[in-house]
Every structure is written in C-alpha cells, then in structure tokens.
C-alpha cells in the first residue's frame, strides 16, 4: 500500500534511510488498525537458526511494506530510524581504528640509479710518482692498464680477469680483484710485477682502488706500486669500458 502523504521514506547521500516524523505517526495508526501488512505470501519459519543474543526483548513492530520508489531493489521494507542533520555530513575517509600506529617496518630505502654495473673489457692508463728525489727531480712512471670484469648482475659482484699493467720497463701480467656493484667500489691487486727501471728496480706489487661511474661505465681511482726495497710509486688510474 503506497504511503498516502507523499514520500514516506527517504535516503540521504550516505545511504542512511529514514522515515519522516509524519510518516512515522501515520504508520503507527495504520499498524494499529491492521491496514498495513508485511506479508505478501507464503513464509518460511522464522528464526530457525537465529536468536537474539541478548535477553531483553527487542522492540519490534510488524513488518511494513513501503513503496520506497522504483521497483526492484528500491521496493523494500524500511526501518524507522533516527535521522539527524549530521547524517548528511560527509565524515571523509577515516583510518581503520583497529590499526596499530606503532607498528614499523624499518629498512633503508635506496634511491634508484640509472646506470648499471656492467661486465666487459675495461682499458685505460695509470701514472704515479716515485717517492724521494733520487736525482733531484721527481721521477714518474706511467703505462696502460686493462682487465676484464666478468660475472652476473644477479651476483652484483664482478670479478677481474685477464688483467695486465704495461709501461716502459714495467710489466705485470695478472690482476685480481672485484667490482662491488652495490657500492660501486673497485679493488685490484697485481703481485707479479717486474720492473727494469734503475730507479724502481725489482719485483713489485701494485694496488688499484677506484670508484665505478655507472653513467660513463668507467673506473677512476688511486694507483700504487711498491717494490721489495719498499719504494713506492703513487698516483692515479682510469679505465673505461671498451667499445
């Protein structure tokens, strides 16, 4: 039965349905007179598996079928709720009150890098200055350095292979070491150097310590040689990936 005084029930923007006070009063009279019903046909037993959880009796009125508007989902029974102006206010998004604000997940974030730690053949040069002034003039040594970096990016550590140092009266045929892709640090060591230079005689070892430039795909850093007499030659080296 349609409500005789216009729209009995309405619904605000948040889906809260309520009945106007006038409608509520009319319903009460209609219910008392048995004009309205909540049953449209055969019914199944009620409360088969459902009972009230609390002892006090719920205040329940007979179901009332109300014309709430369009057919389908809108044609349904409605409660007699309390409508307040606040019902129409949008409370906005609220966080779940059950969340624990003290829960933390610490881990060091890293800024993304554009380059890559790349395997391949690297070649370049070194130069160094001998300590002491044996002739009254600074003495220097220079030459070429080359090595191959191999390994999988999955490992993030590339290994030095096939390394060599070659210069006037200086040579070394083995370099060992690694490039740590996470820190971009390079370390190399050669222990089989041979020098025929009268100012830097005998077997020597050399050290290379540098930083990988993942944009230029090059390594630049410090170079040092030390012979059995304890003489040192310190300077710089630089290599870049072979085209």
């Amino acid at each position, binding site marked *: 039965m349609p409500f005789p005084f216009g729209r009995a029930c309405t619904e605000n923007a948040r889906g809260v349905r309520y009945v106007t006070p006038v409608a509520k009063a009319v319903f009460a009279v209609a219910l008392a007179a048995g004009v309205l019903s909540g049953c449209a046909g055969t019914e199944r037993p009620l409360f088969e598996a459902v009972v009230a959880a609390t002892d006090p009796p719920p205040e329940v009125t007979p179901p009332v079928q109300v014309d709430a508007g369009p057919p389908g989902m809108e044609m349904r029974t409605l409660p007699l709720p309390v409508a307040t102006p606040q019902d129409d206010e949008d409370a906005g998004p609220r966080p*779940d009150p059950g969340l624990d604000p003290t829960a933390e997940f610490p881990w060091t974030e890293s800024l993304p890098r554009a380059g890559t730690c790349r395997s391949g053949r690297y070649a370049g040069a070194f130069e160094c200055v001998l300590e002491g002034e044996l002739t009254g003039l600074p003495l220097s040594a220079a030459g070429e350095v080359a090595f191959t970096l191999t390994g999988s990016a999955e490992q993030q550590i590339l290994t030095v292979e096939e390394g060599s140092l070659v210069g006037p009266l200086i040579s070394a045929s083995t370099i060992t070491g690694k490039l740590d892709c996470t820190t971009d640090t390079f370390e190399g060591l050669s222990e089989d150097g041979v020098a025929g230079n009268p100012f830097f005689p005998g077997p020597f070892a050399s050290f290379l310590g540098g930083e990988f430039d993942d944009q230029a795909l090059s390594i630049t850093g410090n170079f040092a040689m030390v012979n059995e007499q304890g003489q040192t030659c310190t300077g710089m080296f630089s290599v870049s990936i072979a085209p």
Partner: protein
Amino acid sequence: MTGAVCKRRPWLLGSCWALLATALGACADGAPRTPESGAGAAGGVDGHAGRGGAGVDPIAGSEGAPPARAPNANAILMGRCAKVTVQSQLLPSNLLIVLDRSASMACNPPPITDSPTCERDTERVVADLPNKWEITRDTLLQALGALPEDTVVGLSYFSNDDSCGVRSLPSVPLAPFDARQSSALRASLLNVTPNGATPLVGATVLAYRHLHDKALAGKIHGSKYVVLITDGEQSDICSDPGRCRDAVECTRLLLEDDVPKAASDGVGIKTFVIGVPGSEGARPVLSAIAQVGGTAPDSCEVSKGNCHFDMTGRERFGDGLRDTLKEIAGRALSCELPLPDPGSSGPLELERLNVIYSPPDGGEPTLVPQDSRKPCDRGADGWQYAPRAAKIRLCGATCDRVLGERGRGGRLDVVLGCPVQIVQ
C-alpha cells in the same frame, strides 16, 4: 503457540516479541497463511522443530529449499529498536604486487636453462623463446585484467635500480584498477628489463611499510595483500647493515619479525608468495613466508616447501602462473564492511548491530546472523567483527554468495539499535 514457547523459554523473549509482531501484522493482503508461517516459526525459536536449525544458511535456505523470505530481516528493519540503517558496501581489496626483476629473470625457463646455470649466467639462451620475465609479465597483465574495478592495485619491483635498490613508494602507485591504472601497469611492465640482484627482504619490508602507512593515513581501506613474485632468495649483497648482515640473517629477520608483524591484527597485511622457476632452492623460505603471512593452505608443510604457489614443477609455467594469479585474485576479494557511523544517535553499540543482505533483482532482504562459533575462514557462516571490532567480516557461504552476486545490484545494510542476532 508462540506465546506458549515464550512462556516456556523466557530467555527467548526477544525473539518471541519479533515473532509475535510478525504474526500480528502478517497476511493482511489475503495471502493464505501456511502452517509454516506460524508453527514453524515457533519451532524455530524452540531450536528443535524448526527447519534447518542451527547452522542453516540464513541466506540461501537449507536443503534446497527456496530462498527464505526472511521476515526476521523485516522485523529488524521495521523494529522500533532500529535507530539507523546505513547502506554499506564491501570494502575494496588492496593488492601490492612485489615483482622480482633480478638478472636471472632474463633466462629462458627450464628446461631450456636450468636454474643453476641461470644463476651463473643470466643470458637468454634461446632468443626466439620468451624468458622468465616476459612470461611473468605477460601472464600478470592477463591476470590483472580479471580483477574487479574497485580492487586497488600497485606494483613494486626489486630491484628498482640494477643493483639492490628498493623503495617503499611503488613504481606504479596504488590506485583502483580502472582503465587508467591498467594502462599505467602495462606501460610500466613493458618498460622494464631484468637486471640486478634479489633484494627480496627489503622489497617485502618496504611493501608492508607502504601499505600500512597508507592505511594509517586513511588512504586505503579494506583487506591488504602483498603478492610476492620471485625466482630466488635474498641476495647476500643486498643486506641492510642496520638490520642484518647477510642473506640468512636478513631472511630470518623477515620471517621472525616483519611478516608476522604484517599479518598481525593491528596491521592486517597477508602475503601471497609465487615462486617462479629458479626458486627451487628457496622453497622452504618462500613457503615459510606464505605460512607466516597467512595465505598457506591448512595441510601444507613448510619443510616440504608446499605452502606457497610453487611454479617450479609446472610443465607450462605460463599456464600455472595464470591459474595462480586468478586464484589469488579470487581469494583476495574483500568480504569486509566498514563499521557505520552512528551519527547523533549515540555511541556505536556493538551488541546492537545487525546486517541485512538484499540480493539482486529485488529479492527479499535477509538477515545475516552473527556467527562466532568458528573462525571466519574456518567454518563460520554469517558475519563477525574483525579484530578490535574495527570492521565487519562476512564469513563462509554468506561471503561466497555476496561476492558471487557482486556488481549485480545486491545491497547490504547495517542496522543499528536492535539486539544482534546470532547463530547458535
């Protein structure tokens, strides 16, 4: 009869009032009153003679019976006790996909390239056949297409550089899976190539951080999941010296600290784990993450490595991954409702709240009972409060039905004021 039952069992007085009221108002339209509508009702209250009894699916009815008209829902809806009825909606699911793009993903999957070989040399051997990354990417794109539009999806890679880099901010930020988000995910995935190590622990920890921070800020609501897809274990080199020194220590930290914390009630992030070919040696670890992360099946054993989605034994990796992602998408659907705001009607009384479901196509509204007899995912059928009474969860067949009829015009209402109706 009703009155007699109520006299015999005064503790059922509340229900009797409802029945009495229903009986008084019933059938004024001339429809015949059947014996069921009266005697059956009393029998139901009695708890023995009613059809179905405890455990009956209050929505679908029992034993093939036609759907109940469920006037008990009307009793709640129409009761003077009902103060406010709020139309509710299922909260969305939030999926943050944490995807391995380490160098080994560039290998062809077994049997073309076995996992040990791939670990040593990450080159793709057969250029004409897709590598693990391409299979994962393309299958992921297909599977995402099946997600409901209100599912919130984001995508993080590990690494986000070509080394060990990880960040909490996803490469594709969380957003509802609409056409725009679908395009963003596609564009991102198609522009990524495998490289770098496997900073699995850091990526997972930071994914938890991002989801939790978003939830605390009220930016996301509903269930939260991390979907971890990897072909290996944590790389030694990708440790965070402030927390752990090597892969073993970092993995232990993840399993004993971060994953349980994420799965706890106060955070509520579950972790799905998919192990793609190459993760054979990581089965126990990945299974442990899934188990502690709350997504493992009951019967699994971590020591056997069968608690996560293991793709390593699949003959057709792509097919297996597609099935898995489809299953995850289904399991991740949310069956949660927000607690309504009672407005000025007073504080929310948890013991005076009821849930009404109205099926599509104008079906009769049906009361969904609260069922706390069993855990929500272990046999309950109705609704429960989430931990700390933060949300309402639909459970069992009730959840299945609501999800099954999702998007077809069904309606959920939360009614405040009347005593909660429970399954006994």
